[in-house]
């Protein structure tokens, strides 16, 4: 077992060596510009791009003509949301999203508010799921887009996208989903799920960084997004810029491997995740955040009450995880996703996200459990809050001095 152990696979994943192998020729021998129509260098590149487009489309049940390559999920989110807002502004200006979305969605919506959009940020329930009745209440004839993520990056909760899409369509709105964390991990099917626009990224699924895709539906209905970059009119005019051929080949290969390995990976990773979670929640005052039944197979977000996440991570030596605490930022604000679930600030500050991946082993998980338990116990020995809790003092009864 090599240290440190990487358990932050929701931040990024290592690239699968098979993906790298597929990409390598496209940096050197096969370096052509996919838009060069007049010589074999261009044709070879174009062929590789076409093949990758099919691999991506196949993973999500789309047609290859519906795949637009971008630089990643952030660009895809921007292009999808801004592109719809500009293309459909005759119809209306209302967008619905929710408070646990990624910043790439939330900040894009905030940007559009300055341009005249009306945006509804729906709260989620305490388990992280969207309340469908609440969504329906907020739908109007002016609503042009409902944008709700597939799987959450912090807690892994999977939204009922099929039902959400049905509600959006009932009111004549488009349904977009940021599926960055879900694609490649669980079955995502744009037809069955009723998805009109979907954002995804390669580096969350064992592919390279700097490449992603936007799925834009071509029929029933035919969806169009206004380009956000002017230039050569690549990608059916929706995204100009010379195609990142090695990246695209890598994304395609990553999709193919995910499709091939998904079932086995899911069975193995959810078993390891459950083992980790069961072992850690044996400890007093530790809580799993988010709905545990509708969840990505490889994520566990756990709050260890009365210890602070950043301090905890420091004690979890040789484990790369992430925390909902944000003691380094000027605001000291903990995770807005956890706060959206109604978690008190102290529980949000006490959270650790464990993100397992294709290359995580059982030995690593066992080691992580041991290190985490030792760290929590060590820090609770140091924690005045733990002492007060043990003495039966109600922490809410204390008048804390805010600073």
């Amino acid at each position: 077992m090599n240290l440190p152990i990487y358990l932050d696979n929701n931040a990024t994943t290592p690239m699968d060596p098979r993906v790298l192998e597929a990409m390598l020729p496209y940096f050197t021998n096969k370096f052509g510009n996919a838009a060069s129509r007049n010589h074999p260098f261009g044709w070879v590149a174009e062929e590789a791009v076409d093949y990758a487009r099919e691999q991506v489309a196949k993973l999500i049940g789309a047609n290859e003509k519906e795949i637009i390559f971008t630089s990643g999920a952030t660009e895809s989110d921007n292009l999808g949301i801004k592109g719809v807002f500009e293309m459909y502004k005759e119809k209306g200006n209302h967008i619905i999203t929710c408070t646990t979305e990624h910043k790439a969605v939330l900040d894009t919506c905030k940007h559009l508010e300055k341009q005249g959009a009306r945006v509804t940020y729906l709260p989620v329930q305490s388990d992280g799921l969207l309340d469908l009745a609440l969504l329906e209440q907020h739908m109007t004839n002016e609503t042009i887009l409902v944008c709700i993520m597939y799987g959450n990056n912090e807690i892994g909760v999977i939204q009922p996208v099929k039902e959400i899409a049905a509600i959006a369509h009932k009111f004549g709105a488009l349904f977009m989903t940021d599926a960055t964390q879900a694609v490649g991990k669980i079955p995502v099917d744009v037809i069955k799920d009723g998805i009109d626009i979907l954002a995804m990224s390669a580096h969350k699924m064992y592919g390279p960084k700097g490449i992603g895709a936007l799925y834009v539906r071509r029929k029933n209905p035919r969806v169009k997004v206004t380009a956000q970059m002017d230039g050569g009119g690549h990608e059916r005019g929706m995204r100009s810029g010379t195609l990142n051929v090695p990246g695209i080949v890598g994304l395609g290969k990553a999709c193919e491997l995910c499709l091939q390995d998904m079932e086995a990976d899911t069975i193995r990773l959810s078993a390891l995740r459950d083992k980790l979670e069961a072992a850690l929640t044996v400890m007093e005052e530790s809580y799993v955040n988010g709905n545990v039944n509708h969840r990505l197979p490889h994520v566990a977000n756990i709050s260890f009450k009365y210890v602070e996440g950043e301090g905890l991570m420091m004690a979890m030596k040789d484990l790369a995880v992430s925390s909902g605490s944000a003691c380094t930022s000027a605001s000291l604000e903990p995770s807005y996703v956890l706060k959206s679930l109604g978690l008190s600030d102290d529980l949000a500050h006490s959270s650790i996200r464990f993100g397992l991946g294709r290359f995580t082993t059982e030995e690593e998980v066992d080691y992580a459990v041991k290190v985490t338990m030792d760290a929590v116990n060590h820090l609770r020995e140091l924690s005045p809050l733990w002492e007060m809790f043990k003495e039966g003092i109600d922490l809410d009864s204390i008048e804390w001095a805010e600073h």
Partner: protein
Amino acid sequence: MAYSDKVIDHYTHPRNVGTLDKSKNTVGTGLVGAPECGDVMRLQIEVNADNVITDAKFKTFGCGSAIASSSLATEWLKGKSIDDAMKIDNMDIVEELALPPVKIHCSVLAEDAIKAAINDYRVKNGMEALVSEKAHH
């Protein structure tokens, strides 16, 4: 962000972790910060008849820098008179632990905890609480 060796040392081997009997008149207790801010420090001092600090203990809920700041504070407090202890400045802690700018608030909290503990002792023993200049936030 990488931590300095001194922060890691105090964090890994915190000095003077523990609890003094807060009901005793010779003990002053400072409890500062708030759970929702992600930092709570409790710092306690035991003072003799000459107003010299003979023992100091802490417990801290917070990040590594907060734990290290309070651990260091207890080391510095022992053997100091309460008047000298009142002069400990948060920037001394920043310098000693090489805290980066985003962690300065940890040292501020430690200074606040020292002053709160001393004032608790003073008030318990019929002295007025001292109001000090606000630490360098």
